[in-house]
Each structure stands twice: as C-alpha cells, then as structure tokens.
C-alpha cells in the first residue's frame, strides 16, 4: 500500500502537537477550584481562630445574616470598604447582621490586630487559612465578600470592591428587609 507523505506529515504534526499539549498539562500545577462547594446552597462551614483567641465557627452564627469578607492588610480596596462595614454593623447589627472578616494575610496576628484597631473594626476578625479560602472558591484576589442568610444559605457573592449601595442592597437581601426601606442612620454618605 502506498502511503501519502502528506498524510504521514499531518499525523506526525498532530501527534507532536498532542504530546506538547499533554506535557504542558502535566507540568502545570493543579488549579484551585473556582466553584464553591456548597451543600444544598449552604455556605461552607469552617472553624477559625479570632484575633482575640476565640475559636469561631460559621455555623455558630446560624439565625443571623452573615457578611463574610476575605481581606488582607496589603489590600487597599479592602481598606476602602472596611469603614462601610463598620457602619453597616452598627446600623444593622440590631436586625441580626453579623460581619466576619477573614484575614488572608502573611502578617502576624499583632500586625493584623493593629490594622483592625486603626480601622476601628467592630466585628470579629478571623485568621484565615488557605483551606477555608479553597472552600470558598480559592480566593484568588481580594476583597471577596459572601452574603449568607439566616439559614446559612449562600445568597450572593462579590468579587473585588463594590459600591456601598450594592453592599447595602445585599445586606437587606440577607436580612429579609425590603430593599426600598431606608434606615435612617448616622451613616455618612
């Protein structure tokens, strides 16, 4: 049987291409998942240490609406939204809102604590672990904020800095408040 050299060339090129591609895939480090592993839409539970040495579980806050914010001291956009969080915690705390900050930082607890004090943070700051970040999709950049309702269901998420209005809308959503309701407060707009 006479073999067509062009066909042989094509097959050789395809095989070499597939080999290069396969080698590339093998060499590449495994990617972190970006999908959040939820069970029945529930936010993944975790246990982390707070800055004041307490062991805190997300499920301890069942019955409250939780805003879970991943941040770091080196993250300038995180710093922008923190004062808003402080004010929202004051404003909606009595309605059952609880902010939780998870510091995804290499800085020491002392430095993180100093930063939180400088920012006037009035909600628990937890010392983050990569495994917890992975449960929430890998946390490949900061800030990342997750909105969890009173039943522990993950309602919404925000990647990167969002506007204050959008944050408040999400807070009302997890608290079950009418989005149109404006709560008069001491907030500075």
């Amino acid at each position: 049987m006479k073999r067509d050299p062009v066909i042989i060339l094509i097959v050789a090129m395809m095989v070499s291409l597939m080999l290069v591609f396969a080698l590339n895939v093998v060499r590449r480090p495994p990617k972190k998942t970006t999908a959040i592993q939820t069970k029945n839409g529930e936010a993944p539970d975790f246990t982390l240490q707070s800055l004041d040495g307490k062991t805190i579980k997300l499920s301890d806050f069942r019955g409250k609406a939780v805003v879970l914010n991943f941040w770091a001291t080196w993250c300038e956009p995180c710093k922008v939204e923190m004062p808003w969080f402080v004010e929202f915690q004051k404003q909606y705390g009595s309605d059952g809102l609880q902010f939780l900050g998870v510091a995804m930082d290499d800085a020491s607890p002392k430095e993180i604590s100093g930063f939180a004090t400088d920012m006037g943070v009035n909600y628990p700051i937890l010392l983050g672990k990569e495994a917890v970040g992975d449960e929430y999709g890998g946390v490949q950049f900061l800030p990342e904020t997750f909105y969890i309702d009173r039943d522990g269901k993950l309602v919404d998420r925000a990647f990167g800095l969002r506007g204050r209005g959008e944050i408040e809308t999400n807070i009302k959503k997890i608290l079950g408040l009418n989005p149109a309701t404006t709560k008069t407060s001491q907030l500075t707009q």
Partner: protein
Amino acid sequence: MKPQLRFSIASIAFALLVLSCAAQEVATQKGPTVRLAPPALTSITQGKSMPVELQFRVENGFHINSNQPSEKYLIPTALTLDPPTDLVVGGTTYPPGKEAAFAFAPDEKLSVYTGDFTVTTNVRAMTSVLPGKYEIRGRLKYQACDNAQCYPPKTLPIQFEVKVVKPTVIKKNPAQSPHEHPPTSQ
C-alpha cells in the same frame, strides 16, 4: 486534490491548532504578571563593579507598589539576588514610584509602578574570581492590584549573566621612555 494543495491545507490547519492552543494557554493564565526583559550581558573587570539594569514590565491594567509604598501595610517591590561566590551584589536602586490615585480610593495617592520600570543593582567581581560567564539568580517580590481588587504577593524568579574579564593591561611602548631627558648640551 493535488498534493501541494493538500499540504497547504494541512499547514494552515496545523497553524490554527497551534494558535488555538496558545490562545487557550493565555486565557488560562490568571492574575497579573510582571515580566523581566532579557538583560544585556554586562562585562565586569576583576576587582571592579558595574551596574546591571533589570527592566521589568507590569501587565497593562495593573499596578504594583513601589519600593517605598505610601503606607506601612503595603508590600514593597523588592529584589533579592543570590550571587555566586566571589561576586558581590549591592547598592540596588529602585525608581521612585508614580504617585497615582485609583478608582477605589480617588482621594488617596499611592506610590506605584505601572508599565515599564528599571531596577539597577551593582555587581562587583572580586579579584579572585576567574574570568568567564557567571549566572546570578534571584527573585522580585511584588504585590499587584487593579482598579477594584488586589492579588496575593508573587515572586518572579530572576536570572541573568555577567561576564568577568581580566583588567586591561596598557602596554607601554619601550621605545618611548617615560622619563624626560634634559636636552643635551652641545
């Protein structure tokens, strides 16, 4: 179909496949990148030092903190080099950061690098080092952000070569005496 035509079609198909693979590779890269332009080979005379310029490029749309960030919590861009024995590096000079405000904090100016920036470091060859090419390895630590989010600190591996050469010996012409001779009286 003529063999030449078939060959052309096969070549185009192959090129398209390669391009699609390359595009996929680019699309799967996440987060910002800082790249080092291939440094020029610097020649250093034994016993002397020479500046080596390392030119970096920050990916468009991102910024990294300068070596002197405007706030204490921000992570500075820093170069660390591990030279081989008998080569000494030091006196690293970073460019001043650009004072820039970003959408996330329009009233606050940060000291950052964007686009291209050059870090200069002095490499000294001890007199004991043998002439030849030497590889210097190191890393650039940086932390990047865009207009709405920040990425965890990254480390860019650095690698460049320097060439150590012998000092140039100025040969003196023996015919020309260095000493001045007074004119001979006749």
